[in-house]
């Protein structure tokens, strides 16, 4: 895209790492897309187009956007139920994601998964899981498989601060460490698991320090800063790829909306939320790009129009898409087994 000024590489660090202006703008654009997409989803939920649980990522966009922008396309991404941001950052089609939230046949899983279970294997986006920490063992297995095959493909596992107290968190970190699995764990510490503040349930409040108990290299990063997320993950992904075993990253962030659409938010003060809103990752990035003279108000206005359109198109596509046929209910409970069909059995 053309810039307000000729400058370039404003966000490139002295050591040559970091990102170009185009990348920087792309990150902002992606975050705006995710934000708008979810605002639209919330609207559709209110209008009764979406049901079940809807967990918004609003406020945390920088984490998924920055992190995933630093990965290779075929690195595995495994997330939990608050994964719209990860899915869109991974390049899943917003239309098909919205259609999934609507429970339509055109959705990424044909309306079978819904908001908590987005999958797109063609994009190495391996889901969308609703059991806290239950996806961590799977990520370990994906990493194990690539290690076994001898590739340098890695698995990136997003989880929340609430997941660190599950037994599977412990088993997964230990196994990843003992077997030196190519895994990058990214904990999005937004300070709450539903309504429970981290310090009320975690013996160790600095989540990243947990990883040290497994001899896993761990760092903390500002999850409200998309550039920091990108640079940090780029560096850590490289380290994981080199075969030294897993790395653990704690991204400090905040969820601006309730846990789900039904959350009365008894557990936190409005002004705490306000303090964090002041750190909105999108506004921060805009200011940064303004100050660097990379973009001007007009660029942002145009980008806003673009993402409005994307969200609008997604909603219309979802609305117009057909519901899956009831006849399809029993399809794919079992996979076809060509080898067994050969000898006409099972």
């Amino acid at each position: 895209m053309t810039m307000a000024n000729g400058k370039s590489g404003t966000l490139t660090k002295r050591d040559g790492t970091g990102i170009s202006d185009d990348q920087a703008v792309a990150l902002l654009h992606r975050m705006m897309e995710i934000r708008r997409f979810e605002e639209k989803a919330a609207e559709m939920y209110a209008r009764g187009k979406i049901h079940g649980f809807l967990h918004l990522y609003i406020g945390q966009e920088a984490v998924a956007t920055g992190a995933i922008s630093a990965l290779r396309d075929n690195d595995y991404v495994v997330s939990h139920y608050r994964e719209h941001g990860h899915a869109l950052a991974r390049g899943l089609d917003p239309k098909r994601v919205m259609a999934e939230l609507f429970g339509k046949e055109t959705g990424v899983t044909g309306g079978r998964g819904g908001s908590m279970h987005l999958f797109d294997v063609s994009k190495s986006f391996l889901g969308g899981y609703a059991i806290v920490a239950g996806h961590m063992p799977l990520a370990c297995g994906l990493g194990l498989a690539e290690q076994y095959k001898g590739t340098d493909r890695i698995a990136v596992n997003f989880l929340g601060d609430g997941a660190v107290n599950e037994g599977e968190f412990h088993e997964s970190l230990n196994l990843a460490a003992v077997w030196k699995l190519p895994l990058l764990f990214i904990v999005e510490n937004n300070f709450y698991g539903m309504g429970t503040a981290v310090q009320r349930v975690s013996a160790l409040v600095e989540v990243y320090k947990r990883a040290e108990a497994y001899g896993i290299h761990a760092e903390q990063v500002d999850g409200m800063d998309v550039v920091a997320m990108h640079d940090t993950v780029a560096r850590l992904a490289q380290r994981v790829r080199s075969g030294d075993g897993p790395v653990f990253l704690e991204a400090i962030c905040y969820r601006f909306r309730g846990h789900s659409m039904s959350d009365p938010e008894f557990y936190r003060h409005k002004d705490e939320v306000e303090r964090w809103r002041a750190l909105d990752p999108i506004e921060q990035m805009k200011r940064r790009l303004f100050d660097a003279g990379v973009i001007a108000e007009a660029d942002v206005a145009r980008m806003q129009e673009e993402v409005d359109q994307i969200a609008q198109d997604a909603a219309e596509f979802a609305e117009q898409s057909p519901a899956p046929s009831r006849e399809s209910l029993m399809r794919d409970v079992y996979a076809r087994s060509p080898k067994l069909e050969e000898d006409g059995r099972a």
Partner: protein
Amino acid sequence: MPEITYREALRQTLRYQLQNDDRVFLMGEDIGAYGGSYAVTKGFLEEFGERRVKDTPISESVVTGAGIGAAMAGLRPMVELMTINFSLLAIDQIVNNASKLHYMSNGQITVPLVLRMAGGAGSQLGAQHSHSLEGWFAHVPGLKVVVPATPYDAKGLLMTAFDDESPVVFIEHTALYAAKGEVPEEPYRLPFGRAEIMRQGKDVTLIGYSGSVHQAYRAAQQLAEEGIEAEVLNLRTLRPLDIEGIVASVRKTNRAIVIEDDWKFGGFGGEVVSIIQEEAFDYLDAPILRCSGSDVPMPYSHDLEQAALPQEADIVALAIDLLEGVTR
């Protein structure tokens, strides 16, 4: 009698227990500050304090095990597992410890634990959040399994659960919390192992529990219009099971349909069917049928989910077949 919700009925018993027995305390994920994911314990933290109402880490296994341990030490913990789906992470504690310790210790240890969880489907929560595994718990000797269908059941059965010296798995239905019904203000107990005859009938017995009782009842009303008088049984508890009550009804109607949300294959319905045909074989005019959930992971989409769940219309159709099958 005042009309209150299923949720309020549960709250009344929980509050009664907290007020009248200091050995009782509640623990679970988000039951305190958040108010409970189904708002059953809303306000309790403020009312009873952190000693009696404990928010826990997301650690189903240790929370359940700690409840068992506290019960072994003479307290009467109520552990809320939020939903039955998460009980899978605590099932070793439930099966290997809670259900067995009284027996294994030759009666030295008792585990008066009340384990509450919300089960059932129908709210488009997807495959991982739509289980109805009550049949699994009912399979385990040493456990009692309670499945309230109405506010009246909820209040009275939960009261009994707290007075039982054995571990009780108390499974509420997510779709019933807002359902209303008449409930006495004073505390009362409903016995385990006694089904309720919700409707008298002579032509066919419809056996349900929790959510499926209501489908059975509505189906019975439709059948009445077709001139078929269905008897509707609300099991209330799966273990102990009211075998007497079930058999008595079928000996009268000579036909039965078991209705449940859970997957049909290998589900609890099979136990009910087996017992009926063992105990009332000569009284049966037709095979005992099951109207259960489809054998499929629960899809999110509304249409697919409804297609996967048993519907009133299905019950009605099966009942009509049963009766025609005989007149034929």
